[in-house]
């Protein structure tokens, strides 16, 4: 689960991690008021969407308007907010359709001496969390990793013990910090690492992490995502979820216990098991088709789930054929076919449906499909299924 920058910063503040003063604004008047309340001569108005690249992004409605702007008066804050609120911001991460901006975050301007990068993730190979820092603040970390990997510092830390002060100093000196900035890092870095562990984050990224001219580390950005599997113990964090930032079909699928990811192609697929579902997409592509989605109905696949899965697939107007690939294990094929036939009836198909079944009670299931009299194309194995579904597009 991802959250907005302003929400991340509220959590940072509560964890003792320094952030600039900032105020949320949902109307142009609130943006102007926020500038007054902050009381400085400079403020930053920042669009709140989950995607990154906001500073360089522009609005569909106002091609000259950037997603993050510096303003020097309340009136300037108001004018910018008027253009930004309700408009569609397109960034490198949103795709061409962009994201509507409903919330702004107005922050005090700070005196920046240096810009650094900070990221924390769980490293699979290390088997624990790793604090990643770089002197190249403001740049995409992947780009730095590619162009100058020597500038990336990685410090694994113990999830239970946290980051030790000596580790913070080690990083600070390696980044060329001195004096007050090293002392600031000794507090800032262990606290952000503690936050990462305590909140069950899957990623925390601060880019840029700034050093002010008086040697204080301050989080100028906050990109935070949480481990979905741990949300059961963070009721307060669940409340920060913004459904308008998520794909409606993916949300709907998740509510039914399905795992669904929309893709660009025209062949919908319904599969049991994540690995087999990914493989089915690959298979379609190998035979010259394009998968429209990833969809895992899970090990169980009840009639209700299969029905909802069909509805989600067919709601995608790109879909011109559907491939069902089921390997019945403990779940019997005949049970799945019963669900399939009922769902077929309820949903109403107007595109070709290819079904490949294997596993427990497969013969009985095939007979059921045949006896149904439905216009369903059956396939004997994976390759046969892929060929038939791709062919069905050309009929």
């Amino acid at each position, binding site marked *: 689960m991802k959250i907005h920058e302003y929400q991340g910063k509220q959590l940072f503040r509560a964890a003792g991690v320094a952030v600039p003063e900032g105020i949320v604004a949902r109307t142009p008047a609130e943006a102007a008021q926020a500038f007054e309340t902050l009381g400085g001569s400079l403020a930053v108005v920042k669009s709140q969407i989950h995607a990154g690249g906001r500073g360089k992004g522009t609005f569909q409605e106002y091609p000259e308007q950037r997603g993050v702007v510096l303003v020097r008066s309340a009136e300037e804050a108001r004018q910018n907010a008027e253009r930004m609120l309700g408009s569609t911001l397109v960034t490198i991460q949103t795709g061409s359709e962009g994201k509507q901006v409903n919330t702004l975050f107005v922050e005090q301007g700070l005196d920046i001496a240096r810009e650094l990068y900070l990221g924390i993730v769980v490293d699979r190979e290390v088997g624990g969390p790793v604090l990643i820092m770089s002197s190249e603040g403001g740049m995409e970390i992947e780009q730095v990793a590619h162009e100058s990997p020597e500038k990336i510092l990685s410090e694994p830390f113990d999830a239970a013990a946290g980051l030790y002060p000596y580790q913070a100093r080690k990083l600070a000196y390696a980044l060329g910090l001195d004096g007050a900035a090293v002392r600031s890092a000794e507090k800032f870095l262990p606290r952000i690492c503690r936050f990462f562990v305590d909140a069950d984050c899957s990623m925390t990224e601060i880019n840029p992490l700034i050093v002010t001219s008086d040697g204080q580390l301050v989080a100028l950005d906050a990109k935070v995502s949480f481990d979905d599997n741990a949300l059961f113990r963070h009721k307060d964090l669940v409340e920060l979820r913004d459904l308008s930032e998520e794909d409606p079909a993916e949300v709907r699928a998740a509510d039914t216990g399905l795992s669904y990811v929309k893709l660009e192609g025209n062949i919908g697929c319904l599969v049991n098991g994540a690995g087999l579902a990914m493989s089915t997409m690959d*298979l*379609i592509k190998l035979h010259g088709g394009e998968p429209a989605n990833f969809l895992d109905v899970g090990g169980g696949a009840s009639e209700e789930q299969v029905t909802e899965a069909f509805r989600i697939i067919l709601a995608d107007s790109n879909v011109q054929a559907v491939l069902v690939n089921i390997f019945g294990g403990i779940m019997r094929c005949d049970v799945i076919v019963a669900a399939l036939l009922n769902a077929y009836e309820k949903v109403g198909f107007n595109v070709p449906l290819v079904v490949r079944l294997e596993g427990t009670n497969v013969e009985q299931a095939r007979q059921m499909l045949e006896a149904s009299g439905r216009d369903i194309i059956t396939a004997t194995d994976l390759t046969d299924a892929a060929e038939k579904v791709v062919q069905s597009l050309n009929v």
Partner: protein
Amino acid sequence: MSILVSRSTRVITQGITGKTGLFHAQQCRAYAAECQPGADVFVGGVTPGKGGTTVDDFPVFNSVIEAREKTGANTSMVFVPPPFCADAILEAADAGMELIVAITEGIPVMDMLRVRRGLERSSSRLIGPNCPGVITPGIAKIGIMPGYIHRPGTIGIISKSGTLTYEAAWQLGRVGLGQSTAVGIGGDPINGTNYIELLKMFQDDPGTEGILLIGEIGGNAEQEAAEYIRSSVTKPVAGFIAGQTAPPGKRMGHAGAIISGGGGTAAEKMAALREADVVVSDSPGGMGEAMQTAMAR
């Protein structure tokens, strides 16, 4: 011969009073009874607070240590729900279970980090979590895979995925190959046993003549496995990687199946395996043939 599961395996089920735990304990017991008539392989279960009762003739104990003392179990199959599962795994390790097979999906990553730490101090081996389990066809299965699709034979399977492993076993069957042991290592980013440890076991197992490695996008465990195969595995290896068409930044069902920062793609994993002389199938429909090709070399 086989790895992990043998005729001396005795299993307790943690979470046996839950619906799923009981169902699979029954399925596993039936499979073992068919393979080893007269032997009592699935000897009971554990649910704290329900000790002293029985469910479908399985004795239930309050703790793993008690279950071990009373039944002589050396293996635990874990179906405990995610919020309590890490604790259950650590309890099994503390009680001296040699093998712990965790089927549960959805354990928080931070919990698994604690489990990994805890296991460093024990001699227990963890398989999973979020996996179908382990089967040695003709001996016993510890997990949720259907027994009948697996045939005794000489191929060792190592896989991150459940149904894709069934598909692989079925395809192997079509080209006349059975399995020594099939192991699901699970689709989570942090797990117990990795490819390399299992490759080593299969390499050392006289009953295994070839290995089928099934991977997926995310992380670089497959690349490390490729490096190990190149340096230390002399038996023929075939492979398949799921997720060639997966978009970056999106989790594909499994918690660990995500291409992040441009890394962990299927293409780089396939290339690494090919460089290690593994016969890699582009198509999930070609896993059986790839294994056959590797064996014929």
